[in-house]
């Protein structure tokens, strides 16, 4: 009896918390809800502020397909983001592992230098990077997309932080077993750090999927376009059809939401490890 009373007392004290969380959750979700309903309405209704579902989804979808290469762009975004995520994770986890578990003063200094790269504004390096990429004839390829961000100090830092949770004793034991250094990384480290990889994958994939400025510079052909570019095109038109635009935004947002939903738990664990 007492326990029950206690529990409800606790819940009552939490009511302000619930209220605040409900309000903030509503604020967070409402614009997205609006976006979904807008995708099902005509542009006139959207401009008039309708917030209920309409019946125009199929029409909007057809118009979207007619206006832009939706399938192609989804595929492009998916390929670019996936390739980038895989390679970035491979290279940065290797580096984070090296920086933390093969720690020495030289590496510390090198790491501080690399951190400087985080401060470099994207606008500044755009032209020189473009020269490099076009000089190597890589425009409109997946390489143009991924090369600038295949290695970022943030990712290296994340893996480095999380590597603190990796016991160095395992490495010694593995060496005694005859494994070479790379095999230790591959067979011991990677499986243990699964949640870190998951968190890094979510961040990298979402960042890659949503990137706009750089792809706009290097993807000059319509066939190489990405989803954010598709949306910007819809919004740049002579007149904007808001229903179609929001349908495009919906398609652009769904993959990232799915990735997040699926990998939520590991994402949280990975971040937790990173801030220990």
């Amino acid at each position, binding site marked *: 009896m007492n326990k029950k009373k206690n529990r409800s007392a606790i819940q009552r004290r939490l009511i302000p918390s619930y209220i605040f969380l409900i309000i903030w959750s509503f604020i967070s979700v409402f614009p997205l809800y609006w976006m979904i309903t807008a995708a099902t309405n005509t542009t006139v209704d959207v401009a008039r502020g309708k917030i209920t579902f309409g019946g125009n989804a199929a029409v909007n979808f057809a118009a979207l397909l007619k206006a832009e290469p939706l399938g192609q762009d989804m595929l492009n975004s998916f390929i670019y983001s996936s390739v980038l995520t895989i390679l970035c994770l491979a290279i940065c986890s290797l580096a984070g592992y090296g920086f933390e578990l093969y720690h020495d003063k030289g590496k510390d200094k090198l790491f501080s230098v690399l951190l400087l790269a985080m401060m470099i504004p994207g606008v500044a390096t755009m032209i020189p990077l473009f020269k490099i990429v076009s*000089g190597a004839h890589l425009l409109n390829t997946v390489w143009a997309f991924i090369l600038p961000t295949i290695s970022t100090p943030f990712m290296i830092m994340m893996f480095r932080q999380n590597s603190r949770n990796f016991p160095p004793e395992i490495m010694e034991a593995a060496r005694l077993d005859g494994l070479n250094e790379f095999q230790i990384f591959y067979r011991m480290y990677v499986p243990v750090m699964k949640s870190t990889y998951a968190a890094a994958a979510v961040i990298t994939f979402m960042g890659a999927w949503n990137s706009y400025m750089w792809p706009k510079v290097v993807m000059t052909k*319509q066939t190489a376009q990405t989803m954010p570019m598709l949306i910007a095109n819809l919004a740049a038109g002579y007149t904007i059809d808001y229903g179609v635009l929001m349908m495009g935004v919906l398609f652009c947002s769904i993959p990232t939401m799915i990735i997040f939903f699926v990998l939520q738990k590991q994402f949280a664990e990975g971040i937790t490890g990173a801030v220990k």
Partner: protein
Amino acid sequence: MHTIPACLHKIGIVSKETADVLVHCEHVGGKLKMKKVVSVLMAGIMAMSLAACGQSSTAAAASTAAASAAGTSAASSNEAVEVSVAAWDKNFNIPALKAAEADYQKNVNPNFKLNIIEESQSSDVENAITLAASSGDYSTLPDIVLFQDHYIQKFVKDYPDAWQDLEDTDVDWSDFGAEKLSFSTIDGKHYGMPVDNGTAIFAYRTDLLQEAGYTIDDMKGISWDKWIEVGKAVYEKTGKYLMSMDGDGNDLPYMMLQAEKSSQFKDGQPYITENETMIKVIDVIKRAVDAHALYLANDWSDYTDQTIVGDMVAGVMNGNWIIPTIEQVQENSGKWEITSLPTLEGGQEGFASNGGSSLYVTGKSKNAAAAKDFLAKTFGAGSTETYDAALTNGGVIGCSTKAGKSDVYNQGVAYFNNQAIYAKIVEMGANVPVVEQSDYHYTCRTQIAAAIQNIINGADEQSALKDAEDQLKFAMQG
């Protein structure tokens, strides 16, 4: 000097200065422990760049071979020829290009193909040329580009290698209006083939004018002061504005000035605070907004979506390419008519033009001969097949006087109460005064737009305009 940075510079990955800096770094780096790391890095970069080296040289060889092969085969043969063009606006420019393609296929070469690369906006084409010229790699450009008239002079000046002139075609340039050609003629050479006619019109809702007690003939040759009075009356009787304007882009002052045969520039310098006409024009705009005759939309999409398609206005003044937007409001068909623009003094008709683009052949195009022939025999020849189809399918009104005499051009348009608007527009186009232009046209317009915003929000007219002029002078330092 056979250093790695020198090789990087040779193939264009880094500039000479960066290469020198890197060599210096190598010398210094040799003293630190980091030398090993640096040399490994350099080796890696070298490996990457050698791969690029090999690629670019073979690619260059291949393209020059192809260029000489294509160049020799004249376009008049029935060989399969493909010319690429970048253009925007699938409802307007692209049907015009398709019309030209069909014309050329029928009358010159049935195996001709026009590869239309659709861009979403004009700035995409400008950026593509900027990027190509800055990196020295023109292979990313198509053979022909559609390009805004107002920017072409600066682009030709800054990037001369990106363009080819059309002097070696036998186009009759007198067929086109002088004002349109003034944009694309540089140093006496014609670079651009005019496509659309930017002549400005003033379209009015005749039914709403009638409610306020006016007819469309009253609006012809009207003065701006009288126009504001009409606007006041229309607003009171109907709740609609007599005109709206894109607050971001300053189309209106530019057109008003042009109708007065004045410009924002004089002898290459900004001509704003000393320009009596400019001051009067700005004053008219302020009074018009205060009288609810003129509505200032936030930006371009608000201007088109909210005020025009959203049926907030009883009048539209802009380049005639605004007509398809007006026509989107189907229930107002038959209630519109067009006429010329008001002037400050009144008693005469005002003419202006706004925007518009032309087709340009790019400098390193491998199909230049074919591209030029294509342009010369369609748009350049006043070919009614091209122009009629462009008008019917895309609403593109051309600049060719010859083509403007066709039946299609002279038909009555139902939306505009059966007025023969196309012929009227071509006719008006011949009266547009040539005013001084500048490379900094849009920069100036942005400043004037900002000044107008500030004035509407209460700033003093003189100081706001002075501010705009100072900013413009600053930006013109280059």
